[in-house]
C-alpha cells in the first residue's frame, strides 16, 4: 500500500507520527545552544619556541627556518607563515578547511620531535597551540576603582574571578592590567661602592633573612615539640632593619644603602576606563557551551557579587558578545514570524478558503521543527545561519502541499468524496512533487560539500534547507491528503459561483489576470523574434549594468555597537608619552561622539606577555582603545559613520604613525576586510624601501584608508659591546657581565614576601636616577672574581643601535606586508586600483610582489560560489532531463536562469547593495527556485501537447492554468524573504543581501519566465511531437500497402 493511502486510511497513526516529530523538535529546540555562527575550528596551528637571549635574526636562522622546513612534510598544509621576534619564534600553520586537526596535531608533534635535536642548545621545546573560535572572549568588563585601586588585584581575584570560574561552561576568567603589589628595594650604587657591597650580596642577605626553617624536634618531659626558626618578614617594613654588612665594627642596615618601597608594580602598561584607573576582566567559554546562557549567568552572578565589593569599585561591560547574538537571533526570529504571516496571507489570497489554508500552513511548523532535531543531534546551535536558512525555506515548504491540495480540491469539486479524492489525487501528483523537490535539493545539497571558511557557513544552510524541503514533501504526500480527507467538505461545482466576498473580489481579479496572461502569451507567441531579441537585449544590458555599477564585497560588516582603535606611535616611544596621545584621542572621542558610552584604554605592553597579547599587538608605543556604543535603536549614526569620522580626526594627530579603527569584534578570529600587498624578498633595506614607496603610493589612491606596514620600523636599541680581551684580563666573561647589568637595571628578585597566603616579589635594583642614561650604565660597577671593582666603561662601550623588531615569513620567505582598508569602495575595486598603481612601481628582480589578503579569500570564496553554481546547474539539468526524458526541455527552462541574474543585478543596483558572498549565494539559490517555476509550466505544456492540443493552444492553455500556482509559489517565497531583506537592526547586514537578491531575482525571473519560457518552448519543441508521429507511421507503413 502506498504511503499516502496508508496516511489517509490511518489518520490517527499519521497524526501521532507527526505529533511525535513535533514533540521531539520542540524538545530539541529547548536544548539547542544559541550562538552567532556555527562553531568552527579554524585550521590553524601555531608552534611557539622560545630561545632566550637570541635576537630576531638569530631566531629566524636557527629556530624558525628549521621548523618551517620540517613542517613542509605535514599533510594538508596550505600555508606557512612565521614571525621571529627577539627570544621567540612563532610559526603559524594553515591547513585546508575540514582537516582533522587532532591528527594534524600529532603529525606536527612528531615532526617537532624529529627536529628538536637540530635546534640550538638552550632552546626550549616548541609548544603547539590549536585555535578555536570558542577561545575568543565572550565577555569583557571594565573595572574601575578609586580608593581600593591598590588592592584591586587581590579583591577581584577572590571576590569575582573565583566565583565566576565556578559557573558551568565558563572556560576561564582572566584579568588584564590589574595593579600588582611588589616590594622594591631601590639601591643607591654610590653607597654600595662606599660600603664595598654588591647588589648580589644584599640580595642573598634578604633571601637568607626571609626564611622559615624547621629545625627538628625537641622532647621535653612528656611532650614532643617541633622546633622552628621563624625568620620570615611579617611586614615589608622589617626589610629596612636587615643588617647587610659591617664597616668598622658598625652594622650597616638596608635602610642605609637602599629605599624599601611596598608599592604597585612600576607600569609598562596603563589601563584606564573612561579616564579612570582600572583593569579589565574577560571571560572565555568552554568549547560547545552556550554563549548566551553563560553570559546571562555571569551577569546574574556579577549582580550578586558587586555588593560584596567596596562601593568605589565600578564594573561596566565593554563588550558582551551575547548582546549581539541575542539581538540577531531575536531579530531573525521576528523575521521568521513575519515570513510565516506573509505566507499565510498569500495562500489565503489564492485559495480563498480557511480550511485549505490551514492544511497548507501546518506544513510550515512541522518542516521547520525537523531542522531543530537535526541541529540538536549534530550538536550545532541556533545561529544566524540556521535561522536565515529557515527564513529561506519557509516560503518553499508550502509549495508541495499547495500542489497536492490543489489537485485534491479539483477532484472534490468534480464530486468525489474527500477521502477518495485525497488518495487518488495524491497518486496523480506525488511523483511530480518529488521531482520538483529534487530540483531544489540539487541546488542546496551541493552547498553541504563546499569546503573552506565559506563551507562552514554554507554546509549548515545546505543541510537545513534540504532537510526542511524533503520533510515538507513527506508532509505534502501524507499529512496533507489525510487532513484534506478529514477537513475538506464535499463541494458541488456550484461552490465556485457562490456570491461570497472572496468570489466577488479576489477571484474576479485572479480570473482577469488569467485572461490577461493568456492574451499576453498569445501575443508573444506570434512575435517570437521580437520577444527573444528584447529579452537578450535586457540580459546583455543588465550584464553591462552589473559590470560597471555593482560593486563586489566579501562579507558585509555588521554594526555590533562596539569599536576598537589601535594606535601606533613612533617606535621606541615610552609608555608615558604614548599615553598622552592616547588620552588626547580619548578626549576627542568623548567630545565628538556622545554615542560612545565607554572607552577603555590600554597603553603599553604587559611585561609578562599575557594571553591578551595574542589578540592585539602591544608595545610601549601602542595604545588599544575599546569602545562601547549605545544600542543601534538609540542613535542616528552607524558605527561605520563614527569610525569614518574618527579616522579623519586621527589623520590630524601628528604623533600617530598609523592607526586601525575596527568595527568588527569577533568575526572569524578577527579577519578584517583588507587588501594586502605582500613583498617577498630577503634584503631588509631593499624591501623596506619598496614597502615605504608602495605605502606612500597606495595612500594616494582614492578609497584607500588605514594603510599599515606589517614590518615595524627599526627599533632603537642600546647595545653593550664588550671587549673580550679586557674581559679576559679581568677574569670575567660576557655571561657574568650581562648578569650584573641585568640585576642592576631590570632587577633581581631576591625573595618573596608572604602575606595572607599571597606572595609578592621583592625586587632589588638601582634607583631609577642611576640607570636612565648611557653614562649611568657606563658607571655600573662590576666586581671581578678577585674582588676588584671595575666600571662597565672599562670593559666595553654602550652604543645606540637600530634593530628590526620582528621578521615575518610567508611560504618560508621574508615578507613585508602593506595592508589597506577600503573606505567607500569595494574590496575588489580597491584591489584593482592598487594593481593599477603598482604598475608604476619598479620592482627589483629578486623581489616578488603579490596582492592578497581578505581579497584573496574573497576571490577564493567567489570561486567556490562559481563552482557551486556550475555543480548546481549540472545537477538541475540532470534532474530535469531525466524527468522530461528530453535534452531540449531543460534548456527551455534554464533559459529563465539568466533573467534571474538580471533581476539580481537590477535590485543590487537599485538598492545600492554590494555583491557580497552572501548576495552571490542568494543568486545560486535562485537557480533552484526559478527552475521550479519553469518546470511547473513546461510540464503542463507537455501534458497539453500529449493530450492532443495544438502547440500554441497547448502553450496558452497551460499558461493560463499554471499562472496561479506559479504566482502562488513565487509569492510565498518572495514574501517569505521580504522580512529578511527589510530587516534592520543587529546583524541584519549579514543576511539582508541574500533576501534582497532572491527577491529581486525571483520577481524579475518570474515575470520573464512566464513570457520567455512559452516562446522558447514554441521555438525548441515545435518539431518534437510531429516527428514522433511521423516516425511511428513509417514503422507501420506495411499496413497501408
Amino acid at each position: 500500500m502506498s504511503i499516502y493511502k496508508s496516511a489517509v486510511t490511518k489518520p490517527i497513526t499519521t497524526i501521532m507520527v507527526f505529533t511525535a516529530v513535533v514533540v521531539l523538535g520542540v524538545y530539541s529546540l529547548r536544548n539547542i545552544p544559541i550562538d552567532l555562527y556555527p562553531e568552527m575550528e579554524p585550521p590553524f596551528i601555531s608552534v611557539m619556541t622560545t630561545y632566550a637571549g637570541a635576537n630576531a635574526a638569530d631566531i629566524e636562522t636557527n629556530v624558525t627556518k628549521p621548523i618551517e622546513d620540517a613542517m613542509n612534510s605535514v599533510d594538508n598544509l596550505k600555508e606557512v607563515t612565521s614571525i621571529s621576534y627577539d627570544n621567540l619564534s612563532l610559526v603559524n600553520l594553515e591547513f585546508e578547511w575540514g582537516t582533522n586537526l587532532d591528527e594534524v596535531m600529532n603529525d606536527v608533534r612528531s615532526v617537532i620531535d624529529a627536529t628538536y635535536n637540530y635546534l640550538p642548545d638552550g632552546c626550549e621545546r616548541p609548544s603547539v597551540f590549536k585555535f578555536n573560535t570558542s577561545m575568543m572572549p565572550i565577555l569583557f568588563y571594565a573595572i574601575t576603582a578609586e580608593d581600593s585601586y591598590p588592592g584591586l588585584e587581590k579583591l577581584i581575584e577572590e571576590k569575582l574571578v573565583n566565583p565566576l570560574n565556578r559557573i558551568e561552561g565558563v572556560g576561564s576568567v582572566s584579568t588584564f592590567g590589574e595593579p600588582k603589589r611588589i616590594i622594591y628595594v631601590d639601591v643607591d650604587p654610590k653607597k654600595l661602592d662606599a660600603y664595598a657591597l654588591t647588589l648580589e650580596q644584599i640580595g642573598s642577605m634578604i633571601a637568607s633573612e626571609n626564611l622559615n626553617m624547621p629545625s627538628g624536634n625537641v622532647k621535653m618531659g612528656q611532650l614532643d615539640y617541633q622546633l622552628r626558626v621563624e625568620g620570615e618578614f611579617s611586614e615589608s617594613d622589617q626589610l629596612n632593619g636587615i643588617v647587610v654588612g659591617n664597616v668598622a665594627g658598625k652594622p650597616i642596615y638596608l635602610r642605609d644603602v637602599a629605599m624599601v618601597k611596598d608599592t604597585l608594580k612600576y607600569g609598562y602598561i596603563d589601563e584606564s576606563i573612561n579616564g579612570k584607573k582600572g583593569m579589565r576582566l574577560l571571560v572565555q567559554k568552554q568549547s560547545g557551551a552556550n554563549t548566551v546562557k553563560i553570559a546571562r549567568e555571569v551577569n546574574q552572578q556579577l549582580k550578586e557579587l558587586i555588593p560584596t565589593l567596596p562601593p568605589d569599585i565600578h564594573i561596566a561591560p565593554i563588550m558582551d558578545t551575547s548582546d549581539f547574538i541575542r539581538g540577531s537571533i531575536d531579530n531573525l526570529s521576528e523575521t521568521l514570524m513575519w515570513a510565516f504571516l506573509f505566507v499565510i496571507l498569500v495562500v489565503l489570497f489564492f485559495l480563498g478558503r480557511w480550511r485549505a489554508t490551514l492544511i497548507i500552513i501546518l506544513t510550515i511548523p512541522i518542516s521547520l521543527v525537523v531542522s531543530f532535531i537535526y541541529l540538536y543531534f549534530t550538536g550545532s546551535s541556533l545561529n544566524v545561519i540556521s535561522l536565515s536558512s529557515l527564513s529561506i525555506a519557509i516560503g518553499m515548504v508550502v509549495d508541495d502541499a499547495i500542489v497536492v491540495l490543489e489537485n485534491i480540491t479539483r477532484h472534490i469539486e468534480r464530486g468525489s468524496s474527500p477521502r477518495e479524492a485525497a488518495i487518488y489525487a495524491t497518486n496523480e501528483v506525488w511523483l511530480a512533487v518529488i521531482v520538483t523537490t529534487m530540483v531544489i535539493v540539487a541546488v542546496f545539497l551541493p552547498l553541504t560539500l563546499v569546503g573552506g571558511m565559506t563551507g562552514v557557513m554554507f554546509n549548515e544552510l545546505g543541510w537545513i534547507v534540504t532537510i526542511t524541503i524533503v520533510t515538507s514533501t513527506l508532509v505534502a504526500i501524507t499529512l496533507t491528503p489525510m487532513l484534506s480527507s478529514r477537513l475538506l467538505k464535499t463541494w458541488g461545482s456550484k461552490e465556485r459561483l457562490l456570491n461570497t466576498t472572496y468570489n466577488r473580489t479576489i477571484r474576479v481579479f485572479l480570473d482577469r489576470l488569467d485572461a490577461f496572461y493568456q492574451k499576453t502569451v498569445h501575443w508573444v507567441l506570434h512575435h517570437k523574434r521580437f520577444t527573444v531579441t528584447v529579452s537578450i537585449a535586457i540580459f546583455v544590458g543588465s550584464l553591462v549594468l552589473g559590470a560597471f555599477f555593482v560593486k563586489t564585497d566579501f562579507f558585509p560588516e555588521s554594526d555590533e555597537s562596539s569599536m576598537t582603535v589601535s594606535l601606533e606611535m613612533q617606535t621606541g616611544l615610552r609608555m608615558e608619552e604614548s599615553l598622552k596621545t592616547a588620552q588626547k584621542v580619548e578626549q576627542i572621542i568623548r567630545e565628538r561622539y556622545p554615542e560612545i558610552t565607554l572607552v577603555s584604554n590600554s597603553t603599553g605592553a604587559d611585561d609578562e606577555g599575557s594571553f591578551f597579547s595574542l589578540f592585539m599587538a602591544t608595545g610601549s608605543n601602542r595604545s588599544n582603545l575599546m569602545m562601547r556604543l549605545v544600542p543601534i535603536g538609540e542613535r542616528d549614526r552607524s558605527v561605520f559613520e563614527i569610525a569614518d569620522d574618527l579616522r579623519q580626526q586621527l589623520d590630524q594627530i601628528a604623533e600617530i604613525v598609523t592607526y586601525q579603527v575596527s568595527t568588527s569584534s569577533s568575526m572569524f578570529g578577527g579577519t578584517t576586510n583588507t587588501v594586502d600587498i605582500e613583498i617577498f624578498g630577503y634584503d631588509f633595506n631593499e624591501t623596506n624601501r619598496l614597502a615605504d614607496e608602495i605605502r606612500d603610493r597606495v595612500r594616494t589612491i582614492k578609497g584607500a584608508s588605514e594603510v599599515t606596514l606589517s614590518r615595524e620600523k627599526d627599533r632603537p636599541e642600546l647595545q653593550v659591546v664588550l671587549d673580550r680581551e679586557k674581559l679576559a684580563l679581568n677574569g670575567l666573561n660576557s655571561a657574568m657581565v650581562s648578569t650584573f647589568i641585568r640585576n642592576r637595571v631590570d632587577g633581581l628578585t631576591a625573595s618573596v614576601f608572604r602575606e595572607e597566603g599571597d606572595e609578592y616579589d621583592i625586587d632589588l635594583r638601582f634607583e631609577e636616577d642611576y640607570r636612565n642614561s648611557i653614562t649611568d650604565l657606563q658607571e655600573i660597577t662590576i666586581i671581578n672574581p678577585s674582588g676588584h671593582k671595575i666600571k662597565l666603561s672599562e670593559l666595553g662601550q654602550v652604543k645606540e643601535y637600530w634593530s628590526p623588531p620582528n621578521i615575518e615569513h610567508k611560504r618560508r620567505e621574508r615578507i613585508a606586508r602593506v595592508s589597506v582598508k577600503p573606505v567607500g569602495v569595494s574590496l575588489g575595486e580597491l584591489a584593482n586600483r592598487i594593481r593599477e598603481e603598482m604598475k608604476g612601481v619598479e620592482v627589483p628582480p629578486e623581489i616578488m610582489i603579490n596582492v592578497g589578503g581578505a581579497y584573496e579569500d574573497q576571490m577564493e570564496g567567489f570561486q567556490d560560489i562559481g563552482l557551486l553554481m556550475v555543480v548546481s546547474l549540472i545537477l538541475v539539468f540532470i534532474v530535469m532531463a531525466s524527468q522530461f526524458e528530453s535534452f531540449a526541455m531543460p534548456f527551455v527552462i534554464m533559459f529563465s536562469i539568466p533573467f534571474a541574474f538580471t533581476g539580481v543585478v537590477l535590485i543590487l543596483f537599485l538598492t545600492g547593495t554590494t555583491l557580497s558572498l552572501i548576495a552571490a549565494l542568494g543568486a545560486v539559490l535562485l537557480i533552484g527556485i526559478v527552475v521550479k517555476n519553469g518546470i511547473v509550466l513546461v510540464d503542463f505544456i507537455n501534458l497539453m501537447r500529449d493530450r492532443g492540443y495544438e502547440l500554441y493552444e497547448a502553450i496558452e492553455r497551460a499558461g493560463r492554468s499554471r499562472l496561479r500556482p506559479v504566482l502562488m509559489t513565487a509569492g510565498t517565497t518572495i514574501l517569505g524573504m521580504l522580512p529578511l531583506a527589510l530587516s534592520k537592526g543587529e546583524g541584519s547586514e549579514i543576511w539582508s543581501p541574500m533576501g534582497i537578491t532572491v527577491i529581486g531575482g525571483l520577481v524579475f525571473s518570474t515575470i520573464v519566465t512566464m513570457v520567455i519560457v512559452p516562446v522558447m518552448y514554441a521555438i525548441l519543441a515545435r518539431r518534437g511531437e510531429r516527428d514522433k508521429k511521423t516516425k511511428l507511421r513509417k514503422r507501420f507503413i506495411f499496413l497501408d500497402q
Partner: protein
Amino acid sequence: MKAIFIIFNQAHTERLEYVFDRLGIRGYTWWQEVQGRGSETGEPRLGTHTWPEMNSAAITVIPDEQVEILLEDIRKIDEVNREVGIRAFVWEVMKTV
C-alpha cells in the same frame, strides 16, 4: 442471471462499494487498476503522466430482477459529475458451476 461489468474512475470506489452493500450484492470480482478510454467523450485513464487517472473494474453476477436497480444507482452516481465517469455493461450468463 446477468453479469454486470462496471468500469469506473477510481474516485468512485467508495460509492460503488456502498451500492453493492446496499443492494445486498455479495459476490463480485474487482480489478483495482485497469486502463482504458471511453468510446465517445471519456478521457483516457492511463495512469501516465499525461493521463494520471486510473479506472477500476468490477464484475458481479446478479439475478435478473436486481439488474435494473443496480443500473439505476450507477446512473445516479454518474450524474453527480459526468467527467469522472462510470459505465456498466450487462452480459448474459449462460451457465454457472
